[in-house]
């Protein structure tokens, strides 16, 4: 049993990267051992990768529901607790209620989708991670874990598929 090494294969374009990922799969690497990082968002089906799930919509929905509750409290709970009469308008007015509830719902929806993005991506994370600065210059990086005795085999396969460079990469501080 040998330690798996993390190798980084850098690609310039999408087509060689997609072919290389398929090659990795042929070589016996499961999908969760590969980490594809890119400077522009590439839909997972373009690279032949499994679909990524996100929790952001669910968290956003819960935020919207919280917003509705806050809005209803503001417009109905407050006059119930502290009634004050003004200008012949009803104590529990419906049109202003719609306005305030709408705004609070939207605030909840958007605020929680923002927070949800943080939570789901585990932001902020400042520990050392798999990354190279070339990624933000538009390169596609495929980090994969392979058993160290097969390292040369993998390196050769990636070079054949058109990788710019293949080398072992430690997790680094961003």
């Amino acid at each position, binding site marked *: 049993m040998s330690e798996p090494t993390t190798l980084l294969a850098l690609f310039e374009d999408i087509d060689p990267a997609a072919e290389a990922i398929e090659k990795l799969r042929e070589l016996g690497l499961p999908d969760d051992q590969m980490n594809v*990082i890119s400077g522009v*968002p590439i839909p997972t089906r373009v690279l032949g990768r499994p679909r990524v799930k*996100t929790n952001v919509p669910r968290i956003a929905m819960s935020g919207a529901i919280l917003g509705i509750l806050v809005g209803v409290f503001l417009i109905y709970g407050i006059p119930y607790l502290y009634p004050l009469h003004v200008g012949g308008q009803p104590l529990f007015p419906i049109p202003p209620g719609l306005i305030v509830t709408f705004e609070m719902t939207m*605030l909840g929806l958007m605020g929680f989708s923002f927070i949800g993005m943080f939570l*789901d*991506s585990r932001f902020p994370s400042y520990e050392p991670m*798999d990354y190279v600065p070339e990624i933000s*210059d538009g390169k596609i990086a495929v980090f994969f874990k392979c058993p160290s005795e097969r390292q040369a085999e993998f390196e050769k396969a990636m070079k054949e598929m058109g990788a710019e460079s293949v080398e072992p990469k430690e997790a680094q501080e961003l």
Partner: protein
Amino acid sequence: MAVTANAVSRPYQEEEQEDPREHLMFDPKPRGEMNGMVMESMHTTNWKFWVVTILLTVVVVTCLFGAWGYMIAKGLGVAGVNRPAYWGIFLTNVVFWIGISHAGTFISALLRVMKVEIRRPFTRAAELMTTFGLVQAGLSVFMHLGRVWRSYWLFPYPNQRTIWPDFHSPLMWDFMAINTYLLASTMYLFLPLLPDLAMARDRSTGWRKNVYRILSLGFRGTEGEWKNLHSAMNIFAFAIIPVMFSVHTIVAWDFAMATRPGWASSVFGPYFVIGALHSGIGAVLLVLFVIRSTMKHMKYFLRPEHFDFLGKLSLIISFTWAYFFFNDYLVPWYGGDKWEKLLLDFHEHGPLAWVWMTMLICNIVIPWAILWNKKWRRKPWLMGIIGFVINIGMWIERYVIIPISLTITRMPFTWRIYKPGIEIPLTIGTFALFMLLYMLASRLIPLIPVWEVQEGQEAHTLRKVGKATIPAVSEID
């Protein structure tokens, strides 16, 4: 009638085809090069930049904070508000700045939802306008309060007096809406900024790198991160559009709910929203022109085609504004309410009729005279001027609606014309602060969303259809 095909002297292609590389989306550069251009435009300054910055800082400190402190100490008597014009230039500024901020949301949210690709390079510049515009609007709201040190009472919080704010009031709807909009647009500014902050982090050294490292939250660009970012950005784009419409409608309702002649108009809601877009798109034109002419490499990203697009949009919105204005004009003109008619007469023929006329010239006549011409729309300097003129017209429109309309009440004994006082330096101060914030931001925040430009450039291809090469966009998202 028989149609004969005559042989054309020149081949078809030469006459009809323009060079696709004229368009940013068909003129791709390597991402690394584009990154370098944006970083360089952030870091390159000359002495002129610093002179302007220092001047603006001086103006902000004296005209904004100095004058405001004086007003807080002495009371609103140093301003020009009186009976019956209890609201004057402060509220004009509030509506103006909120209006400007709507263009940013329109461009980055509505155009994103409609997949209008030409928006790609200028979304961030527009969104920055939104955030900084809302800052000025917030300041102006605080400025107009009589006892600004008690303004926290508008916030619903538990207190011993068991009294909470009154949600019957349109000002409270305003409070909720503007805060929602401010928070939402700041978050929406930050989301697409995250990958560019990561890029800046990778390309910076020293204290800058530390700042970007912290701000970019450890963003790398993994599949999960992109998916979450996309998901959040989609929710924002869809959700912030109704918020954008509702915010300025609620601001309009501050006036429409009042019993003043000329204010209690049911058309005010949509009228103000269109007015916001009108002034906002004009401001975007002006800001883009300034960015393009003063910052390095921006001529690659901001091209005549973008000014052309915004010019067309501005013309359409000017038509729509004229439609709503005519609605609002026709009803009192036709008669029925004596006070509304008196107010209309005052606008058109009173001592301040020149203000009303200037508004119509700036908002309708000049845009309609210039913006129909494609060649003129592609001149950034002309578009910058048109944007400036439209903003003058729209500021005057709010001045007409607020202090000038307040002159006429149902009790003629109280009629009195508003004369601005300390509002003038305070207004200059808000404009200076807006420019100062923008200039400082241009040093720290990459103004072009390079990842979106690259994403767009990768999706745009040239297809051969028959004998012609046709530009095509793939929906690769």
